[in-house]
């Protein structure tokens, strides 16, 4: 069967819907067990208090805040990848956008929970709503994250409408009642008429434009939480743009990994080829080089002046107690993956995956190097603080990381893994691109 036919699109995008099998249930069981262990660790912390973590009086931000910044960053990268590719009209985006948008929502759901975990007393989150301080970045962080979450869900949902209708029309009879009802409600009666196409294009266009400044604002506010303090290594004017770039870098790397994993799991080799990984690698290289430039700019200006606090933190990073972690990040988590991604020749997919894995790990380390030394640096004349995470923090971190693939697997059991509608739209000749209703879309009639 030709890979570029409607039947091929439908078959590959939807074959996994409703299907179980050993591989699916095995993955769900394994990931579910890790998530459950993370939940157990959280309940343990809830019962005994934050004393069971490695957080202490001096280093009161640790794994939880690192993970919050990290996972929201990944979400941001997913949303930005999709939005930028849509707005620039990149045709090769079609099989990737659904994966990027779903990754954005899944990572955001995980990342947004971390500030509550870090509170120790989750009931106190109500105080933020009862006694908001409009001059504090904390309240704006809540506003930005919740706005971005709603926008991400809408951005995922709108392009899903024609595909949900397709699932309704193609699999409706054979699907269970829950799926049938879900598809019927979510499809909003989509039949692919010209008016529906127009409304959908407009809605997606607005969201694609909106999601970019929204994602920028979320990560900027997150950066300002650090930058408006007078702590060493945090009080920097470049913090917001560097956070945004870091988020995009780790997000694109995460999208590459998700695309590679789901390509293998759902057999999308005919649609997602080495070309897609090469293009995503180019994006990775551009963002990586931008990040290197920003980082040098930050360290050079701070290091040259070497004020009492920031100088001490830089010393700890470059030659002090955090030097091993810092140079591991700089070499293995940034320089090496960029070289790997830039190399020409064979094994583009494997190289992109290895580079992305290193970047994702490296960017997590970078968040660690932002949060912990900044906290450990004593502002008063005192000893440096120390931080060692306990099993509780590690279990919650691993559990939350496992929640992302679990959410994606469950999501794609209900919805098409690729946007068939978009694939056919970008493949259609220019004069047909805006033509009403592909034949399959109105199949219910």
């Amino acid at each position, binding site marked *: 069967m030709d890979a570029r036919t409607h039947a091929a699109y439908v078959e590959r995008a939807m074959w996994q819907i409703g299907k179980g099998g050993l591989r699916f249930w095995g993955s769900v069981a394994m990931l579910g067990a890790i998530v459950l262990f993370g939940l157990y660790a959280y309940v343990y912390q809830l019962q005994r208090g934050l004393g069971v973590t490695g957080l202490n009086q001096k280093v009161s931000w640790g794994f939880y805040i690192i993970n919050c910044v990290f996972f929201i960053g990944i979400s941001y990268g997913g949303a930005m990848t999709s939005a930028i590719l849509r707005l620039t009209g990149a045709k090769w985006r079609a099989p990737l956008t659904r994966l990027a948008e779903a990754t954005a929502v899944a990572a955001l759901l995980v990342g947004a929970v971390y500030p509550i975990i870090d509170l120790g007393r989750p009931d106190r989150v109500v105080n933020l709503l009862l006694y908001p301080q*409009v*001059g504090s970045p904390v309240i*704006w962080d809540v*506003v930005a994250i919740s*706005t971005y979450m*709603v*926008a991400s869900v*809408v951005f995922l*949902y*709108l392009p899903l*409408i024609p595909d949900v209708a397709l699932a309704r029309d193609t699999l409706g009879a054979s699907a269970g009642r829950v799926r049938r009802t879900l598809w019927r409600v979510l499809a*909003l*009666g*989509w*039949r*692919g*008429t*010209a*008016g*529906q*196409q*127009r*409304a*959908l294009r*407009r*809605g*997606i266009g*607005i*969201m694609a434009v*909106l999601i970019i400044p*929204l994602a920028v604002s979320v990560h900027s506010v997150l950066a300002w939480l650090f930058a408006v303090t007078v702590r060493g290594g945090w009080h920097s004017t470049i913090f917001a743009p560097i956070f945004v770039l870091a988020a995009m870098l780790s997000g694109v790397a995460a999208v590459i990994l998700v695309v590679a994993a789901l390509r293998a799991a759902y057999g999308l080799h005919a649609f997602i080829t080495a070309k897609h990984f090469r293009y995503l690698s180019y994006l990775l290289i551009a963002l990586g080089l931008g990040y290197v430039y920003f980082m040098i700019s930050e360290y050079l200006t701070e290091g040259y002046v070497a004020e009492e606090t920031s100088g001490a933190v830089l010393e700890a990073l470059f030659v002090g107690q955090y030097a091993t972690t810092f140079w591991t990040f700089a070499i293995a988590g940034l320089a090496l993956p960029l070289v790997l991604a830039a190399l020409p020749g064979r094994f583009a997919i494997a190289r992109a995956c290895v580079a992305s894995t290193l970047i994702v790990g490296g960017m997590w380390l970078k968040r660690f190097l932002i949060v912990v030394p900044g906290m450990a640096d004593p502002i008063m004349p005192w000893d440096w603080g120390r931080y060692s995470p306990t099993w509780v923090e590690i279990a919650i971190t691993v559990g939350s990381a496992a929640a992302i693939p679990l959410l994606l697997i469950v999501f794609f059991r209900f919805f098409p893994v690729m946007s068939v509608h978009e694939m056919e739209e970008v493949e259609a000749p220019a004069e047909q691109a805006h033509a*009403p*209703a592909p034949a399959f879309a*109105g199949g219910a*009639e």
Partner: protein
Amino acid sequence: MIRGVTLALAFTAIAMVSLASPAAADHQRARVTLSATPAAKVEQGYLISAICRLVDGKAIGNATVKFYDVVELFGEREMYIGSATTDASGTATLLYLPAQVGTRRIVARFSGSEHVGSVESRLTLEATVAAPAYHAETPGLAIFSTRVPYAVGVVVLAVWALIAYAFISTARGVKTGARIRKGDTA
């Protein structure tokens, strides 16, 4: 031999006590009488007077008396509020304007001198006047910092409105399109 050593130790102990005793005997006992009256101008607070005298009634002049207000700050603790030197009549006076109205517990403490032992006295004062609440000087950029959050709030509302518009208009467009027959121009 042992008996001799024991005797010598006993004599030494008696000698030490007899050397120490005259010094202790030199420290005369004193007492402080504490009182508070409203200041000449009400807004100035209270005039707290500590009269230091020896037990025989003789005034202690030129002595430093320190005054404290007992406050609750992570537990009960004494907040130093000032000190004054006694005059010839043994009176040290401090003008004190509490930070809060209500019951204040004032402590006056004389730490003693070469010949007079330390002593303190306490007083409960029902304060009806207090210092006005502290107001920081308005910074020059306050005109921006007080308005910026509201401007940002307006932007956030606009973003929410745009998201709602994108969602609702798409949903309405799709719903309306569903009622039009395929092939018709919507």
